[in-house]
């Protein structure tokens, strides 16, 4: 079937080229049938990509090692769950995932807009086909996922152990879905610029896709943070790593875009800003895809060097150059339709929030690419490190949280000082009380930025709580409904608004978790023998015994050997046991011995975390294998030609030796306050985004339409 897969890619590339030519031909007046034909070509492209994806996924599930990619990224003992994910752990597979998702999103948006945007849609079709065609060209020309091996190995190399984590099952597709979905508003923005239709039509047609992109990208980032926290063994969730930053940058500009398009939709303002933002977001999404595998920047998340770096950079350069050229040439058509009525208005604060978000993005961009910049200027690669990022991003994050609280209380166009005072009194009082209580009753004042963040979070949550309460109360006054019913119906009728507020609340809670966990964590690094004890943040910890498991690791990743520890933890009446371990995976490196290949291949931590709403207890272990080195070397020599069963017995004996007579092991224990709220807040934000995305029932829309139509009709007749 590899031939069929390759044929799907080649025909897909031809189809994408045809879609570009037919759509442009149709858009230039050759006849609408060409536009329909171009659109159909995109649908066909989606069918071809889904077929190619299914063929490759099936090869992974069958452990068909005649596919080079399967031999390189999977093995027969890889659990089925991870065989599915192994496809996108490879460069070729991730390109295929990108193209498949893109073709599906392109088909969805072109189907939804088939009855509208008559002039813009054909150009958008062409842009989407160009992007899809680029990824197909990479696969057909350089990175074919369907390459086969003349002599397939009996066993594959296996999936990178670091990627054997449930979050990794969905983290990359989430990120890629986010990246890909941003290509939709980008394509329609380019279409709008080419056709000079720079009103809000393209924004209305693609708003949901922007929100989908934002939601998926945000979810992907949060899952990546969760993976980092529970898998990488260093105890943090965010390291300002280039690949992490690369996913955060388009999310930040995408957040700015989602806010600023509301200003264009409602007021006809910020047109230039919006097209700049969407083009920047798409270029950053491409950059993120490129960085994750390029290896041009040192990253804990980069898995291998790229052979397509130049092609990617040329394409990104092309996107930036064409976008910039189009925007400059269309500046006369991008003039605002109105002026800001007042600096004290929601649109003014949206603009401010946009500046902060873009400022954050610029800081992160500079810090991420500083190693390349410094190398270009001085010949030496220097990096700025997390403290630099923390110092510059913390003030901006504080302002952002404050703005996310102020924005919802402001009305569009103009707010009077008296109205502002009225709606701000309660949140300001709540924030002041929270600050006072935290400063006097807790140690929050030890970190001024954290105390400010807690205060702003309290303010934001109070504002949003007040918005829900006042909204429900206003509806109850209008309709006489009981308060709970009024609240639900109010949210149902204003999903965008209240979904957005939920997102603000979720992000505020997320920042609460970040501020508390980063400023007030207690960390201990030590070496312990069984029976040793230590204290961390008031917890008494005792290393009870060592453990050794064969082909039975706790997380079910398929690790042949897992060495770990059992520790009892207690504080007051609270008692629990933790089982951190370290998994060892066999390497296929022929230079390693028959026994040492099981101990000297990839290894990764299986962290054990006691999750809690107030604080987490995080524990990792790194066993010291030096005492086994002699025995392992001896095993390599003496059992080199022994049957596999005998070698397995030797490995079992070595593991048992570690269990019964363990040398001191290195432990890292961290107690982080409120860290779980990062994911609770993030999850709530995603829920809010889903509320904002959810379409209103058609029947309700019709009723509203008719009500307003009648009302407007009456006014019209009076005019």
């Amino acid at each position: 079937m590899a031939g069929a897969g390759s044929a799907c890619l080649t025909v897909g590339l031809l189809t994408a080229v045809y879609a570009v030519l037919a759509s442009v031909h149709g858009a230039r007046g050759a006849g609408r049938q060409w536009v329909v034909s171009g659109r159909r070509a995109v649908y066909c492209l989606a069918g071809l990509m889904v077929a190619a994806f299914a063929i490759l996924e099936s090869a992974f599930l069958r452990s068909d090692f005649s596919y080079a990619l399967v031999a390189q990224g999977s093995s027969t003992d890889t659990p089925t769950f991870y065989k599915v994910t192994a496809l996108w752990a490879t460069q070729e597979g991730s390109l295929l995932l990108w193209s498949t998702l893109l073709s599906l999103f392109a088909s969805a948006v072109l189907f939804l807009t088939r009855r509208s945007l008559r002039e813009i849609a054909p150009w958008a079709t062409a842009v989407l086909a160009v992007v899809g065609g680029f990824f197909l060209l990479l696969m057909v020309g350089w990175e074919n996922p369907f390459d086969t091996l003349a002599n397939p190995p009996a066993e594959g190399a296996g999936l990178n152990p670091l990627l054997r984590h449930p979050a990794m099952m969905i983290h990359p597709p989430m990120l890629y879905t986010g990246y890909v979905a941003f290509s939709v508003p980008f394509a329609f923005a380019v279409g709008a610029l080419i056709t000079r239709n720079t009103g809000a039509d393209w924004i209305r047609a693609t708003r949901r896709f922007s929100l989908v992109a934002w939601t998926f990208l945000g979810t992907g980032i949060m899952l990546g943070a969760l993976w980092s926290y529970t898998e990488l063994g260093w105890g943090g969730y965010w390291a300002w790593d280039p690949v992490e930053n690369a996913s955060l940058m388009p999310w930040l500009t995408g957040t700015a875009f989602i806010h600023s398009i509301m200003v264009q939709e409602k007021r006809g303002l910020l047109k230039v800003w919006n097209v700049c933002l969407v083009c920047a977001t798409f270029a950053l999404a491409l950059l993120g895809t490129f960085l994750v595998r390029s290896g041009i920047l040192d990253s804990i998340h980069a898995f291998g060097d790229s052979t397509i770096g130049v092609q990617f950079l040329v394409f990104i350069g092309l996107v930036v150059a064409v976008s910039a050229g189009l925007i400059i040439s269309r500046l006369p058509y991008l003039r605002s339709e109105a002026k800001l009525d007042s600096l004290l208005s929601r649109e003014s604060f949206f603009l401010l929030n946009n500046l902060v978000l873009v400022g954050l993005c610029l800081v992160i961009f500079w810090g991420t690419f500083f190693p390349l910049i410094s190398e270009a200027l001085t010949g030496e690669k220097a990096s700025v490190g997390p403290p630099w990022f923390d110092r510059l991003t913390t003030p901006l994050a504080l302002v952002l949280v404050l703005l996310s609280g102020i924005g919802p209380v402001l009305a569009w166009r103009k707010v009077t000082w008296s109205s502002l005072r009225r709606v701000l009194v309660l949140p300001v009082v709540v924030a002041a009380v929270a600050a006072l209580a935290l400063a006097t009753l807790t140690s929050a004042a030890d970190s001024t930025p954290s105390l400010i963040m807690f205060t702003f979070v309290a303010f934001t949550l109070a504002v949003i709580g007040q918005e829900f309460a006042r909204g429900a109360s206003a509806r109850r006054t209008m309709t006489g409904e009981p308060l709970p019913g009024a609240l639900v119906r109010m949210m149902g009728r204003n999903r965008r608004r209240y979904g957005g507020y939920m997102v603000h609340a979720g992000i505020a809670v997320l920042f609460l978790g970040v501020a508390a966990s980063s400023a007030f964590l207690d960390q201990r690094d030590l070496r312990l023998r069984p029976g040793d004890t230590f204290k961390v943040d008031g917890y008494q910890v005792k290393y009870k015994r060592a453990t050794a498991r064969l082909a039975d690791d706790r997380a079910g990743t398929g690790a042949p050997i897992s060495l770990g520890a059992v520790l009892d933890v207690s504080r007051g009446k609270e008692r629990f046991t933790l089982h951190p371990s370290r998994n060892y995976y066999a390497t296929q490196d022929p230079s390693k011995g028959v026994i040492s290949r099981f101990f000297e291949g990839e290894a990764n931590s299986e962290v054990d975390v006691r999750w809690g709403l107030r604080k987490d207890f995080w524990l990792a272990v790194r066993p010291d294998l030096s005492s086994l080195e002699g025995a392992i070397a001896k095993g390599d020599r003496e059992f080199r030609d022994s049957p596999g069963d005998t070698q397995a017995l030797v490995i079992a004996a070595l593991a048992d030796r570690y269990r019964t007579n363990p040398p001191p092991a290195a432990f890292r224990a961290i107690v982080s306050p409120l860290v779980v709220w990062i994911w609770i807040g993030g999850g709530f934000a995603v829920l809010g985004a889903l509320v904002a995305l959810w379409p209103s029932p058609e029947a309700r829309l019709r009723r509203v339409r008719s009500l307003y139509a009648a009302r407007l009709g009456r006014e019209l007749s009076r005019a």
Partner: protein
Amino acid sequence: MGYALAFIILVALVAMAVLIPLTRPGADLAKDEARIEELKAAKEAKYREIRDAELDHRMGKTSEADWRVLDRELRGEAIEVLRQLDKLEGRAPES
């Protein structure tokens, strides 16, 4: 399945799908239909703005005077959209 055979089959299938519309000129929607869809979306957006403004006012974010001015303006814009819709849909404008 061999590459060549798969290639030929897939090319034939795609060609059939994309060439059919070329044999039926005028199969796509007329210019007016597209504009009607856009105006319907614009109408929904304007209604949403009217509701938002009303809710803001009821929640005490805007004064009575400011809200009345804004509401009148938004309704005027909505009426303009409805007029254009009526015109395109062949209905007599309300008088």
